[in-house]
Every structure is written in structure tokens, then in C-alpha cells.
């Protein structure tokens, strides 16, 4: 079940309501609050009968639409895992599609129960939302055209200020690029499509982005691109929930941890294989590795 | 004033002109001698204005020829074929013929002085200072010395027409054409324009005018041409044309101005 504000009809009612409230009070939240005061979100979700997850739709391999128009990706798999844990049915999820900037606001305003949207854990964000345990360690890298001027990371470094990279607009993106390529210029685009287009059109020399995305793109068009072969700036991807609900946070953490190390490992490993092309090693039996 | 002994300046022979199927000029013959004031009169639709415009090549004509100082206007005949002259040659010929229009046609984006100067600097190639001097002289002559920096919209119709006359005269044309120059004016403004024209006529300027001001024509013109249905129906000295109209059409035409003519004449 995907709720989205596109092909008008279903959303028309909601939007007319939105217009009306915009005209009237400028506040009245239009969707029912996801949580009653005093009880845990866990209880609310169970009573409601489905989970509401905030995510996006334009960033493979995390959350995107496949050729049949179905929402898929690593974030989506994590959300379905939660639904399975709650209702024994991975389909009982409602996805609310939102832009990256809406991730924290939608939690604060309780529009969603949880955000699964390639969210980088930072101390600043942790002040506004509670992060779950991370389920992916991301790094940034550069991808070039296979028939372009630059073949290796050393070529990029040597290019100095002649080098232009495209990237998805982001708070830290320029600083991160400059850590390894201090003189490179970074053109920031609103959508990952546009950033990639800029590389395809050879408007830029390289696409600067998440290694997961680069790996995915290289898989899709193996002869077209080359990976500069250098990753830096480690950062952790986790889900986030509204602050101040330890029961809910703990439940999600439990599911995630056991996906990575316990009963749901096979499900998790299959997703890793599918989206990142990474084969995970089966956790060793014996002493739990997280305390090793 | 000019007599028949003066040199022939303009010579039109068998000029015909049609708009589509409608034949407006059916073979006009006309001579204008140096220093003469020739007036074209006739009912509207008789072809006076069209003929005037042919002289300045604002209209193309099909057959016949118009010569200025013996040089054919607008066309040359080459192995019996009539060819139109180049735009540059036509422009040069036009520069020798001045024209004043019914609707003044002052350039709206230029002051009175600039209007007069434009042709002097761009066509005659005179230096700006000299052009300005000439412009001021002529504006002074038409009584508008104090209006030279005014734009057309700031001038009355009569003043605009006087600027237009100054603009035409300043080019020192061999011949000056006037196309019903007082028709668009309020009655009280007509006199000031006619006065300027009379002044020009006295100074020896060769003029060909289309006018409905019969009194003025009678007083100022040396030669009057009555046009009717695209041909010259009668021509001669004013006294002759006005007092001995040869055709009923001319009698009828003049009858409309009877009061004015007898009253003043």
C-alpha cells in the first residue's frame, strides 16, 4: 500500500481539505495523529493494523520504483521486515513518499511511525530524532564515464581545480568531496537523476555520491562507467523514530539487530546480495560477535 | 513670376496607374516650369493625390514617364524594356523632390529641429552644426523659432505642418509637392500654413500642389490643372479655368466653391 499525492483522485479529497484548512486555520493537521499520548508507538501501530513508514522513491538501490512501478530497495526491505515482525505480514506497510528534507519534520509532526530513508546518523540530527542501530555503513566515492578523460583516482587528484563533480544537494557534500579532492568544484543538483544526467552529458567529470549508489549504477550499465576505486567519509545509515519512546525504539532495534545477526539473517543477507551485490558472511556460532 | 520661357522642370507624359482592375490615372500629361506654382484640383477620387505620389515614387506607375530636369524618374529604359532603378538611385531622385503630406508625418521621436535635420545629415551628409544652422533658419522662416525643441505631440496641427514644410524645404529640393496639406487642419489653423506656402511661392520655389483651398489656388497658382476621372480635363491660367470652365463637370465642381470664389474674387 503506497499513499502518495500524485494521480489526483484519491488525494483530491485530502487536498481539498488541505486547501480548506490552509484557508481557515493554517494548522489543523490533516492526517490522523499516529500516536495517542502516553502509550507507546508500538501499541498504536499494533492497534492500527499497519505500519506507516516515511521514505522516498528516487534513490536506487535504497528506495525506488522498479520497471513495474513497485516501490523496492533496501530501505523498503527493512520496512517490510518490521511489518512482518509486527503483523506477520510484510504487506501491512503504508509508505509515505517524501523528500529528504521532510525526514525529521515528518517524525516531529508524527506523520509517520518511522523513517527508513538512507538516513545518515549525525550528532545534530540525533538531537531531534532517535536513531536505531545502523544497518549499512556508507562511504562516498566518484564514478566516471568509461570513455572519459579520467580513468583513475590519481587522474582525478591530478586534475586539481579543473575537476568538476556532480552531486545530490546535501549539507555536507562539498566538505566531503574536498577531503580527498580539495580543489574539485561540486555542482549540486536537486535530484539524483539530474546529477547523473550531468555525468552522462559529460557536463561534469565525475559523479560524486554514495558508494552504494555508485555500485548500483555500475551494475546497471557495466560498460558505461568506471569506479574511481576510492571510498572515504564513512557514515552510518539507520532508521529514525520520534524522540522519547524507548519501547518503540527498542523493539525496532531488536528486529534490526536480529536481522543482521540472528533469526532474520537470511532475509537480510538476501537483500544485501540483491541491492548491493555484497555476500554477507553467516554470523559465527558461539559468543555473540557484537560483544566480541 | 515664372513665364512659359522658363526652363521645363517636370514633364509627365501618358502616366497610367491602376489599383487592381481600377484604373486611377488614364494617361496624365503635365509640365511644370522652373519657379511655377501649379495646382491640381478636382473631385476626390479623380487621381490628383495618386499622381502626386507617383512623382515622388511613393506609388509605382505602369506606363508613361515622368522626367525631372530631363531625367526619367524611377525607371530607365533598356533595350525597350522598362526597368526600375535601384533603391539608392530612387532615393537620390526623391531627395531632389520635397513633399508635404496631408497628415504632416513628422517623425514622432524627434524634436522639430531634429525632424528638419535628419535628411540634411543622413541624406545630404552635412555636418551636424551646419544642418542645425539650416534647420534653425527654416524653422525661423516658418515662424517656429521658439518651438524647435518641441516634439510633434507638443505642437498644434498647424505648427506641425509648418515644421513639415521646413523639413521639405530645407533639403533644397528642385520641386516641392503639397498633398492637401490643409485638409487635416482645424479651420483656424489653415491660414498660418497657407501664409508659409505663399511666402515660399514668392521666393521662387517651384511648387506642385493638390488643394481644395480654391481661393488660395486662385491667388497663388500660375497654372491650374483640373483632373477628372484620371485624365486632365482642363488646364490653364487660374483666371481662364475659374472663369471659363469648359466642361459641365468643372462648372459643377467650381459651383461648390462659388461663394468663396465670387465673394473674394
Amino acid at each position, binding site marked *: 500500500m503506497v499513499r*502518495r*499525492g*500524485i*494521480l*489526483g483522485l484519491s*488525494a483530491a479529497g*485530502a*487536498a481539498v481539505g*488541505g*486547501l480548506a*484548512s*490552509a484557508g481557515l486555520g*493554517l*494548522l*489543523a*493537521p*490533516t*492526517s490522523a495523529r499516529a500516536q495517542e499520548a502516553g502509550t507507546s508507538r508500538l501499541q498504536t501501530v499494533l492497534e492500527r493494523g499497519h505500519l506507516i513508514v516515511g521514505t522516498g*522513491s*528516487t534513490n536506487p538501490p535504497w528506495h525506488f520504483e522498479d*520497471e513495474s*512501478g513497485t516501490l523496492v530497495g533496501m530501505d523498503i526491505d527493512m520496512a517490510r521486515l518490521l511489518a512482518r515482525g509486527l503483523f506477520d505480514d510484510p504487506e501491512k506497510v503504508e509508505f509515505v*513518499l517524501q*523528500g529528504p*528534507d*521532510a525526514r525529521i*519534520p515528518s517524525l516531529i*509532526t508524527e*506523520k509517520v511511525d518511522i523513517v527508513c530513508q538512507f538516513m545518515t546518523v549525525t550528532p545534530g540530527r540525533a538531537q531531534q530524532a532517535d536513531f536505531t542501530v545502523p544497518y549499512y555503513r556508507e562511504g562516498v566515492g566518484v564514478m566516471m564515464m568509461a570513455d572519459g578523460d579520467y580513468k583513475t583516482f590519481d587522474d582525478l587528484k591530478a586534475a586539481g581545480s579543473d575537476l568538476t563533480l556532480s552531486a545530490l544537494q546535501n549539507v555536507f557534500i562539498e566538505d566531503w568531496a574536498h577531503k580527498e579532492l580539495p580543489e574539485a568544484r561540486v555542482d549540486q543538483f*536537486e*535530484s539524483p*537523476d*539530474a546529477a*547523473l*544526467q550531468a555525468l*552522462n*552529458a559529460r557536463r561534469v567529470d565525475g559523479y560524486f555520491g554514495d558508494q552504494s549508489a555508485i555500485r548500483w549504477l555500475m551494475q*546497471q*550499465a557495466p560498460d*558505461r562507467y568506471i569506479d574511481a576505486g576510492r571510498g572515504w567519509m564513512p557514515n552510518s545509515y539507520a532508521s529514525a523514530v520520534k524522540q522519547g519512546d524507548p519501547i518503540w525504539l527498542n523493539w525496532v532495534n531488536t528486529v534490526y539487530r536480529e536481522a543482521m545477526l540472528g533469526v532474520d539473517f537470511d532475509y537480510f543477507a538476501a537483500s544485501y546480495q540483491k541491492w548491493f551485490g555484497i555476500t554477507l558472511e553467516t554470523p559465527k556460532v558461539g559468543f555473540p560477535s557484537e560483544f566480541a | 513670376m515664372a513665364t512659359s520661357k522658363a526652363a521645363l522642370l517636370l514633364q509627365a507624359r501618358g502616366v497610367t496607374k491602376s489599383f487592381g482592375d481600377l484604373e486611377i490615372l488614364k494617361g496624365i500629361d503635365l509640365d511644370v516650369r522652373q519657379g511655377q506654382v501649379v495646382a491640381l484640383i478636382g473631385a476626390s477620387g479623380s487621381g490628383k493625390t495618386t499622381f502626386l505620389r507617383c512623382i515622388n515614387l511613393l506609388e509605382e506607375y505602369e506606363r508613361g514617364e515622368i522626367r525631372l530636369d530631363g531625367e526619367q524618374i524611377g525607371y530607365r529604359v533598356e533595350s525597350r524594356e522598362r526597368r526600375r532603378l535601384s533603391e539608392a538611385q530612387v532615393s537620390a531622385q526623391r531627395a531632389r523632390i520635397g513633399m508635404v503630406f496631408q497628415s504632416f508625418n513628422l517623425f514622432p521621436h524627434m524634436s522639430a529641429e531634429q525632424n528638419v535635420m535628419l535628411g540634411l545629415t543622413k541624406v545630404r551628409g552635412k555636418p551636424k552644426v551646419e544642418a542645425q544652422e539650416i534647420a534653425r533658419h527654416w524653422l525661423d522662416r516658418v515662424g517656429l523659432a521658439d518651438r524647435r525643441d518641441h516634439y510633434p505631440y507638443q505642437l498644434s496641427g498647424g505648427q506641425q505642418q509648418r515644421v513639415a514644410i521646413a523639413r521639405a524645404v530645407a533639403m533644397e529640393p528642385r520641386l516641392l509637392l503639397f498633398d492637401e496639406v490643409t485638409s487635416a487642419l482645424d479651420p483656424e489653423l489653415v491660414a498660418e500654413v497657407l501664409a508659409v506656402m505663399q511666402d515660399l511661392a514668392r521666393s521662387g520655389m517651384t511648387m506642385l500642389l493638390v488643394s481644395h483651398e480654391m481661393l488660395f489656388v486662385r491667388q497663388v497658382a500660375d497654372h491650374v490643372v483640373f483632373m477628372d476621372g484620371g485624365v486632365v480635363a482642363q488646364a490653364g491660367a487660374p483666371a481662364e479655368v475659374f472663369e471659363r470652365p469648359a466642361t459641365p463637370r468643372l462648372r459643377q465642381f467650381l459651383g461648390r466653391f462659388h461663394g468663396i470664389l465670387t465673394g473674394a474674387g
Partner: protein
Amino acid sequence: MERGTFLYEVWVARWSLLSGFGITLSASVLTIAIATLLGLILGIGLTYGWRPLRWLIRIYVDALRGIPVLVLILFAYYGLALFKINVPPFWAGVIALAAFSIAHIAETIRGGIESLPQGQTEAAKAIGLQFHQRLAYVIIPLATRRVLPPWMNTCAEIVKNTTLLSIIGVVEFLLSNQQAIARNYLVLQFYLFAAVVYLLINFTISQLGAKLERRYAHFRY
């Protein structure tokens, strides 16, 4: 058809392109409907309104016409969220487009009404019609003819402006083409394809407009 050729890729992307086309059309139609209705009301208010009301509308109209549509769209998308108004991107876009077009249509309507000869209104007054009757039977029908051409222009502008919705992630026709390009790299082909489709939409609108104009052509005054 071979994989990688333009027609094959259009075929593969047909549903996504169709849905994009549908979104472009629905966004355009909704915007045109809202903007025309409210623009008409504001336009009448701007012409006949009580003075302070007129000023208010004037400020709205002038302000909205001085802001880029893209900024309005981004503002509606990011800004309204702060008022806890749950607006999905599609509707944020429609609201912004409509807000902008209302201003244009209101101004058009005012111009149309004010260009009517005074005599018409006076004649309507003279036969004793009340304000709303004069509006309904005389002024609006007569102004329609004047307003029709600029209104059709605004409609075409609205269709073109719906492409800006792609920037806040609404998968309208342009973005559906870009998604296809992201898969198959047929940049020029798909952009030209998109251009032709927009051209056809706007051409249809202008044909429709010409037809309407002919129908109203007998209103001469």
C-alpha cells in the same frame, strides 16, 4: 524492435510516460479550473471592490507576479509543511501554480472589464439592471471576448509551468521522460519527444481558443 532503440524504450516506459502525461494533464486542468474561478472573483473584486479590498487584491496580484513560479512551488512544498499542513508534492505544486495564475487571470479580467465602453454599463443601468445582473448579462459576456485570448495564453503557460513540479519530485511528463533517460541515455530523443508532446498540448489549446474566439466573434462593439 531492438533493445536500445528509441521506440523500444518508449514502449518499455509506456506506463510511466502515460502516467506522467496524466499527471501533467490533471495538474494543468486542476490549476486552470481553480485559477480561472478564483481569478474571476479576484478580477471582479479588483475592478468593483470596496477600496481596501481592492488594495488587498492589488498587493496580492502584484506580489505574486513578481515571484518566480519555481520559488512559489518550493515555498508551497517546504513552507506549508511548517504550518503542519500536510501537502503532498502534487498538491503543493497545484496550489503554487494556481496562486500564481490567479494573479495573472485577475489582472486579465480587470483589463477586460475596464476596456469595455462605458456606454454598455450605462445602458444596462438605464434599463434598471442591478449590479449582479449587469455583471451576469452584460459585462461578463462582453468581457469574455476580450479576455479569451490572454486567458488561453495563461492556460498554455500553466501547461508549460507544470514541468516545474518535477523539481519537487512530482513525476509529471518531463520527469517521466527524465527517468527513462536515466535508464537508456537517449537524451536528445526523449527531450525532443517531450517537446513535441507539449507542443501538441499547447497547439490543441490554441486551436480550441481560436474556435471559442470565432464563436464569440459576433460580439463587436
